[in-house]
């Protein structure tokens, strides 16, 4: 049995909120800020901070656009983000297997 390595966990997505963002985007691919905020039950400021961290790591990309003449922010999962999320899930699976 392989020992679970805690140090291998990706700190950027290990937090509950950021992991939640990654889980949502893993299936939605792209979504707007409001849908994401409502799904995760976070405040605007909190979500912006977490998206900023994920963007710094290159895991998501946020885009500004106008929809019905109103500004709208959308968030897209990048290929690096998808890989990081899948790796994280593999590590989680390993942890559960070793319990």
């Amino acid at each position: 049995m392989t020992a679970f390595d805690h140090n291998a966990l990706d700190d950027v997505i290990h937090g509950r909120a950021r992991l939640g963002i990654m889980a949502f985007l893993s299936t939605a691919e792209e979504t707007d800020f409001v849908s994401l905020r409502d799904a995760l039950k976070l405040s605007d400021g909190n979500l912006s901070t977490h998206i900023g961290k994920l963007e710094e790591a290159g895991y998501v990309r946020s885009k500004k656009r106008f929809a019905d003449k109103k500004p709208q922010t959308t968030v897209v999962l990048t290929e690096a983000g998808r890989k990081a999320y899948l790796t994280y899930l593999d590590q989680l699976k390993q942890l559960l297997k070793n319990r």
Partner: protein
Amino acid sequence: MATPSVEDDVAYLKQLAEAGASGVPNGGKYFLVWAVAIATGLGLTYLTVTDMVPIGRTGLNICWAGVIAAGWVASLLMGRADAAKPEGLRFANRIVSATWIATGIALTALWLGLMVSGTHQAIMMPIASAAIGVSLAVSATVFRLNWLYAVAMVWWVVAFVSFLLLERIEFILFSAAVILALQGGTGVALLIQEGRRGR
């Protein structure tokens, strides 16, 4: 506050992944537009073949071209507006949208081919019914709407029954009624559902 267990985390991830995967139905108005357009065409067809409106085959074809073009123009205009809405971004919504556009193009191409070649156009009904059933089944699966899947199955029954009625004049009225009831009814049901969601 208790620290969430691994099981809690996994349940949380699953719930969010499912939320991201689920599409948001927004197509009620398209169903209504096409129900009205096709039922209008079928009504005109009935009036022409029973000599109540003397426009002849060419006139009827022009009328059909008009209602189909009107359906497409309305759909494209509504589609442009919908593309700007948040739900249009979801992968699930993009899949459903692509499925219906492909179905629409295929059926339009088929109708055009039947018209140009002079083939009996009544054959459109069973083929269209089967194709609509497939697209509805995709929408039902993506949006997780069991009742929509039931409507898809009714369309497949209609496709089968239509072959038995092709040669009867009443078949035109039957088709119009089916379109209004199934296509229009689905449109109204979806619009009610979309209204409840507060959009």
